[in-house]
């Protein structure tokens, strides 16, 4: 959609040469989340490592992130790879700064490449004055932008000397890290750790390749390169009050799993599907130490059904998948909704429709999640916006499922699920984990005798209540014997077609959503200056980029804020801020004033073709966004792309008038 303008000023600040003694102590109690004001950065460097799939681009990138974090930097790592194991061009992008970074940098300052193809694909993303690091044998295009600094490094020769071509990725990494001024020793220890389980010769050749390439670049070649890391204080052991000092580097899928496990998730059944597979793999890896039953099911229908079965006994159960799998699970979602069984479904979205872009990112399952089965039934949809929010979503999804006895769909995406983010360890705080089972009566009761057993019809599983929530006995409870049915049923769960009961039951089930809205579901969060008149309407993983975009725009004289939804269904405009309640449509789209009526420009930013959140927003509030910045090429939208899109939209609408919503 937006072709990158290489002419645009880079957001990276050259190394300010501050003496290390002046570097402030890192304060890990600070928010690592998107804040009202973006952090002040002394430096902000992005690099991209590219090569053929199978050349180890991803491991080079994640080693770089790990090394950066160990040295006290904040790192963000994002894979950009194809759905094959070998062949095809892959990239891994790393962004490093002295302040938290929650999204990728655009443009990048260094491209380290193992193939000519990778070089050509990425050059358009290179900042003015940036560097291309490649092997001597690679000759990039003849009419290369004159500002680009080309560093030819004998990558192949260095790798072969070190033990073989398999270490080319480490040679390229060493060269790139040398260029941006990162210490070789920290890099080597990260490499050693990564290959700890491999043969010693493997460790040695990888370390050797990185070291030699680093040395090759570090002196004369790197001299004067403007995009270098500044000094940072080494990671401090944090205040003693903090339960868990230090920093960690992890992905959204991992953070979700940690949150789920901490919240008491004990059962997962799933079928592998990129980019959700790592969730099942995480649970399977921890099945023994955490006591989790992790089932690799025969298909997604079975997976979701198994989770329902486990949940019937009172276990906290989930399934994870991507869009195609959610399609198969739809009948089960309706089943859980009708029988009021807590069910957590995680959909790590990828590019659709159908097989689409298997390894790329998109936010295009919202409308599927919004109505994931036939008929009217209660369900909840949430979408964390950051890795830290993924952790909270991990336990919150189970709380909501238990409290409202319904399916809860968690929408992640390939970007937030797979990208690595640096967080303070205390951001994932065991003591902050809430565990609320709602009106659950217990299930497995061993000591109870059969006398406690009730006669048929005595326990009302679907008792009509004001909240719509009925006390739920887990299968095995002696006092709760009942048999739910996906057919319409009476309060005691027996099947009925009686019209009065049907109406009461439908109302009871749907009333739970009103209760949820009143008590537990959250309205959108505003980031930035609340009085700013341009509002970026976003949901899910575009939050960090939108916040940075708002800062770019504001610095440019366009006052913008971000309105971010994590809770996507049900939503209502009751008690919501003015921006949600049918924010008045402006007479003209001016970016410099807010009307006395609170009107302002509403811009949807979404990673899908049809503006799926815009449609829901319009449906609920009657207020359609004035225009949308949409991206659906499978690559995560960057702050710059959002800012450019907003500027363009404002410009266009000034010329053409307010579009008809």
């Amino acid at each position, binding site marked *: 959609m937006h072709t990158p303008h290489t002419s645009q000023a880079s957001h990276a600040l050259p190394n300010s040469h501050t003496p290390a003694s002046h570097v402030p102590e890192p304060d890990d109690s600070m928010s690592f989340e998107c804040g009202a004001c973006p952090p002040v950065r002394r430096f902000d460097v992005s690099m991209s490592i590219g090569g053929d799939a199978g050349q180890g681009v991803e491991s080079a990138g994640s080693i770089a992130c790990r090394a950066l974090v160990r040295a006290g930097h904040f790192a963000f790592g994002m894979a950009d790879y194809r759905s094959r194991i070998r062949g095809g061009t892959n990239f891994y992008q790393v962004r490093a700064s002295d302040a938290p970074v929650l999204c990728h940098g655009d443009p990048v300052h260094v491209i380290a490449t193992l193939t000519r193809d990778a070089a050509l694909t990425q050059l358009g993303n290179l900042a003015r004055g940036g560097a291309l690091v490649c092997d001597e044998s690679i000759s990039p295009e003849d009419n290369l932008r004159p500002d680009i600094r080309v560093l030819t490094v004998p990558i192949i020769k260095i790798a072969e000397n070190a033990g073989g071509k398999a270490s080319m990725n480490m040679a390229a990494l060493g060269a790139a890290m040398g260029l941006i001024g990162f210490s070789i020793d920290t890099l080597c220890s990260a490499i050693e750790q990564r290959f700890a389980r491999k043969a010693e010769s493997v460790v040695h050749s990888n370390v050797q390749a990185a070291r030699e390439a680093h040395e090759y670049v570090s002196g004369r070649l790197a001299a004067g390169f403007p995009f270098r890391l500044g000094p940072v204080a080494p990671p401090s052991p944090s205040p003693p009050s903090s339960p868990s000092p230090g920093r960690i580097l*992890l992905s959204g899928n991992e953070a979700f799993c940690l949150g789920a496990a901490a919240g008491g998730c004990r059962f997962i059944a799933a079928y592998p599907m990129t980019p959700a597979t790592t969730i099942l793999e995480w649970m399977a890896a921890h099945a023994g130490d*955490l006591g989790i039953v992790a089932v690799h*099911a025969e298909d997604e229908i*079975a997976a979701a059904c198994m*989770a329902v079965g*486990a949940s*019937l006994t009172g276990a906290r159960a989930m399934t994870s998948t991507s869009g195609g799998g959610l399609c198969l699970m739809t009948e089960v979602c309706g089943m859980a909704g009708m029988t009021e069984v807590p069910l957590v479904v995680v959909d790590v979205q990828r590019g659709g429709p159908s097989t689409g872009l298997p390894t790329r990112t998109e936010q295009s399952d919202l409308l599927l999640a919004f109505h994931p089965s036939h008929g009217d039934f209660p369900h909840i949809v949430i979408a964390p916006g950051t890795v830290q929010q993924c952790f909270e979503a991990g336990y919150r999804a189970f709380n909501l499922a238990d409290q409202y006895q319904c399916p809860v769909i968690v929408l992640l995406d390939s970007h937030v699920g797979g990208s690595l983010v640096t967080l303070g*360890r205390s951001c994932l705080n065991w003591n902050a984990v809430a565990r609320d089972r709602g009106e659950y009566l217990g299930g497995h009761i061993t000591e109870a005798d059969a006398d406690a*057993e009730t006669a048929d019809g005595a326990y009302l599983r679907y008792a009509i209540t004001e909240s719509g929530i009925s006390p739920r006995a887990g299968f095995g409870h002696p006092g709760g014997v009942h048999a*739910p049915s996906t057919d319409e049923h009476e309060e005691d769960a027996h099947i009925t077609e009686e019209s009065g009961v049907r109406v009461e039951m439908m109302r009871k089930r749907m009333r739970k959503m009103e209760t949820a809205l009143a008590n537990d579901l959250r309205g959108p969060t505003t980031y930035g200056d609340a009085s700013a008149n341009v509002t970026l309407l976003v949901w899910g993983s575009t939050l960090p980029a939108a916040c940075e975009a708002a800062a770019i725009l504001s610095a440019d004289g366009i006052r913008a804020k971000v309105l971010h939804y994590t809770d996507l269904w049900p939503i209502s405009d009751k008690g919501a801020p003015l921006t949600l309640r049918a924010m008045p449509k402006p007479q003209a789209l001016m970016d410099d004033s807010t009307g006395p009526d609170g009107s302002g420009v509403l811009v949807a930013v979404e990673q899908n073709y049809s503006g799926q959140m815009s449609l829901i927003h319009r449906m609920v509030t009657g207020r359609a966004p004035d225009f949308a910045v949409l991206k659906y090429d499978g690559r995560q939208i960057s702050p710059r792309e959002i800012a450019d899109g907003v500027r363009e939209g404002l410009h266009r609408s000034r010329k053409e008038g307010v579009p008809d919503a």
Partner: protein
Amino acid sequence: MPDTPFDSKQRPVWCPGCGDYGIMAALKQAFMSLDLKPHQVVIVSGIGCGSKLPDYVHAYGYMSIHGRPLAVATGVKLANPELTVVAVDGDGDAYGIGGNHLIHTARRNMDITHIVQNNQVYALTKGQFSPTTDTGARTSTSPFGVIEAPIMPLALALAAGAAFVARGVAFDPKGTAGLMTEAIRHPGYALLDVLQPCVSFNKINTYEWYRQRVYKVSDDQRANSHDSGDFYAAMKLAREWGDRIPLGVIYRRTREPYHSALPGLARGPLPARPLDDIGADGFERLLDEYV
């Protein structure tokens, strides 16, 4: 029908003469003979006439969706292996839309007793052919006669690795109750295909039709009795269909059930554990992986 603790207040809507009555009576009988209590039993069904059964039995039950009871039952059993889990569904559920689950539940050896009410027809939807309908049968979706070959459910289960395979018939509640008891006792997946005359929609495979063909095999180790431990002998019997239809235990062997090898169950049934039993220390150890 004897008064049992498993009697429900709900009156069945099955047609008079339906084979499902006999299957339900046999099932309650089996629970009684195993000394089970209603809260210790979970009956998961699909969608179909026979799948209404859990509504008519006072025990834990779940009437799921068409073809999926084995998958739901798997979740129940893996979360709390102390429960006795029975899946009850029709030939359409088990051998048609849910056929994949049968293969994999058998292969995994889930400790589930799978009772199929096999009436060789889709009854609830009023008489279309099913995967077990014989070739040539005229039904509303095969007005010129079925041109497909029927599935051989027992052979299918055997090929998928089932360690207990049996067949009963609805009009012999006592014999069928005995088979159900053995199937429930068997640790692991047990398929019990029960021939069930449908008086309304199957005018071919009637009580009379079955009576003329069925015979009991005994595996009592006496001379000439069937060796139910012999896979190939079992496979031969499993494929016998037509003029003669064998009833009884066709195959049985010991095989470790799936849940007994699961590391996740070492600390007991999942619902019995407190939600925070990972503990703060355990959680910090998890975070150490990300330093």
